[in-house]
């Protein structure tokens, strides 16, 4: 194994955004396993650089909050995997976060626009 990069895992995403994207993905796509969630986010975000592994801590956080739930299923490779799905409180949280995000981004946009 080559020398491991010791810095934090690479992510171009602002902190906390990943959680929102995961929630949104599950909302749109229904129950998915980890790899599909990672792939979906990658596809949607174009050339955004994301370590696929970084979704697992995010999934764990969301599960601990009770916003997503897990169920064991079988993958395409015939292996036991966790399928994640959005819970009711997760749906509510998604709405709140989306609203927050929109508010924040419109605010930022407004300020940036005013300056320009």
């Amino acid at each position, binding site marked *: 194994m080559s*020398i*491991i*990069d*010791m810095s*934090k*895992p*690479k992510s171009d995403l602002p902190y906390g955004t990943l959680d929102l994207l995961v929630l949104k993905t599950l909302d749109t796509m229904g129950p998915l*396993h*980890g*790899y*599909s969630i*990672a*792939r979906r986010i990658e596809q949607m975000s174009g050339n955004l650089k994301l*370590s*696929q*592994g*970084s979704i*697992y*801590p995010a999934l*764990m*956080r969301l*599960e*601990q*909050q*009770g916003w997503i739930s897990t169920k064991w299923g079988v*993958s*395409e*490779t015939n*292996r*036991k*995997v*966790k399928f994640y799905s959005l819970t009711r409180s997760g749906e509510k949280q998604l709405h709140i976060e989306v609203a927050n995000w929109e508010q924040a981004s419109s605010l930022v946009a407004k300020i940036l626009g005013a300056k320009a």
Partner: protein
Amino acid sequence: MTLRRAVARLTALFRRNRLERELDDEVIAHLELAELDARERGLDPLEARREAMRRFGGIDQMKEIHRDDRSARWIENFVKDARYGLASLRREPMFSIVDGVLLTPMPFPHPERIVRVWEAPTPASSNSTTTRTFLEIKRQNQSFDAFSAESLSTATVLINGEPVRLDGRYVSWDHFAVFGLQPIIGRTFAPDEDRDGAGRVVIISHAAWQQHFGGDPGILGRDLLLDNEAHRVIGVLPPGAFDRHRARPLDQPASFWRLNSFTEAEIEAGSHWLNPVGRLKPGVTLAQAQDDLLGIRARIANQIPQWKKGWSVKVEPFDQLLVGDTLRQSIYVALGAVILVLLIACANITNLLLARSAGRAREIAVRSALGATRARIAAQLLVESLMLGALGGIAGVALAAVLIDVAAPLVPGMPFTAEISLNWRVLAFATSAVMLVSVLVGLLPAMKMSTRSAAAALNHASRGSSAATDRTRRVIVAVEVAVSVVLICGAALLFKSLVRLQNVDIGARIERVITMSIDLPWARYPDGNRLAAFYPVMIERLRAIPGVTDASFSGDLPLQGTGGENLNMPGRDERMLVGFKRADANYFSTMGMGMVAGRGFTAGDRAGSPYVTVINEALAARLRDRFGIHNPIGQGVDLPALGFGRNRRVTMTIVGVVRNERVGRDLREPVKETAYVPISQAPRMQVKLAVRTAGDATAAVPAIRAAVHQVDPMLALADIRTMEEIWERSLSGLTEPVWLIGIFAGVAALLAALGLYGVVAHAVTQQRREIGIRMALGARANDVLSLIVSHVLTTILAGLVVGLVAAVALTRVTRSLLFEVSALDPTAFAIGAAVMAAVGLIAALVPASRATRVDPTTALRSE
């Protein structure tokens, strides 16, 4: 963080293994799926796997984050590190923390307000006060809430038909208000109950109540016969109040308190016999009280005799009196030694941790490569040392719990307020000491380890410790050697001083002499004639006992101190304070004290015959130097004729000069100039009996008691001791520090030796390869040995030099503890250096000799 998440994080603690396994499963599934995708995109299997790994990112970093986020990580870490610490402990030698004796404050409310008042002939000396001084201060002062005069009082009490002498105190009515004490049953003295000599009441100690009266609450209102005088018992003090209160180290604790009432004669007499204690009013400082008393003294100046005009008054905190200077010094010295030993122990542990850290460099490097932060690693190392410290601390406290019961009775002269026990204060002290020590011990290795670059460590790990770590360890060991040298030098100095003290000439022959105190009660011996008649009759009876070769009565025994009186040459008002001792015709022969000139006392020196005195050599020398008297025999000197009633000064003829006897308790002090007077001419109720025997002195006690009871069946024999015991006790407080420091020095040397051993052993292990090469190239065992030893030698030498310099710098501390030994005594220093050098070399030679047995081929192959 939401509550739900917090709960989830806590429960994660207990599902750790399962969560880890699930995460592993997910990662594997993810990578398989990714690989599958990549192959579907046309990549070959190897490339597909690489692509999947690349896209996933650092697996172990992700896991670290996962772990950090998933649970209350610090708890998890703590538990894990604690396990680590425990595991390391099984491999590492343990150390224990020696806990110093903490003095608890006096068991009285607001102890800082309790003071002792003295009259001070010179600024450096203290004297008891006269009755008049006490009464005037009590009447006029603005400073005290309560002010009491204490003086010794003994009484013979019949207990189960046997006369027993109890020690007690004469006090003022508000004595217990000074100490803020309430009796557990009954009452204390009522205001002014001491007026008119009316108060025939007594308060007894809890210990006396339990011991002599079986704790019977019916004691209240009963009459206690003190020397055949009925005293109504009005109260019992709480346990521990004064149970260990001794005016002098050899005294019994006070059993009873009765009221002072002063006769006109006592007020006029002007003897200094009262020990006033007071409770300062709130907010009054020592200095204010002092000014107040000086003002009072100025107002009564016309009542003070001319020769005492220059005296002053002093106010001292009460606890200062309790914790004497010698004890205070001993405690500080012991504490200092404890700290030094503790430092050495710390240094050793630091060294061990450093050595181990070298071995663990690889483990630490791997952990940090896997994303453990620097702080996290440092924390782990600190927790390990805390665990080490905590276990050591627990062992230390357990040891202390055992030792304290063994040790406490061995420490004489402790103030009665010093409760020596493992209380919460000591435990808190021990705990903070453990914490401090652990952090100290762990800090250096932790810093060294966590700042080391992971890559470098991974590369170097196989080669063992770095040169920098080695240097640190050598410096630490050198410091250990230095500290040990300081302690060994101190121990050698103190030991030499003790030997000198033990060889001090007592002036008296102390073997085969048994002594005791007898109090002749006033009721049956109401005047000097009765007393004077008793002594010779009793002595004749005692000398008739087979095996008794001599017997004598005196006012005081050797080494137990004696009163002081002022002596002046007739017609000259120039007084000098001399020791004043009553002795009968047999005292000098019983004590084996030879006459230097003239004669001792005879049966003819009795009440009514001309006043005579015998002086010791020291006083003779003083008279010669001061007054030019070369032959003192026949010379008259003025001394008080002490007896019953008012004392007056008379001219006494010096009839003899006797060899110097050690009058005082402190062997370190010079011989006191002393005048002896015939006890018949200065009769006294409290007397000391000394009996010299042909055989074992203690075996004669029953016969002595029988003889005394034949003369007076109501007399109690108290303080029965051989002169040898009295001599041994005079060394008490002086021998203990020597053994204490000696033991500490031994421990320190041992620890330093361990440290040296560790460093050399480690170096030998690290250099096996080098040694192997050298030996393969033809080096002989001696070459290898000198290579290693020369390296250690510089460490030891550096330590010795620093240690000797430090020991010289510390002479200021040691000087005051030494008797007739220079604080810079060359033999002591030489011994200190030699012992440490020898111990250090032996410690180094053992592992070094192992190096010479290195087999070149195995050594070279092993890496």
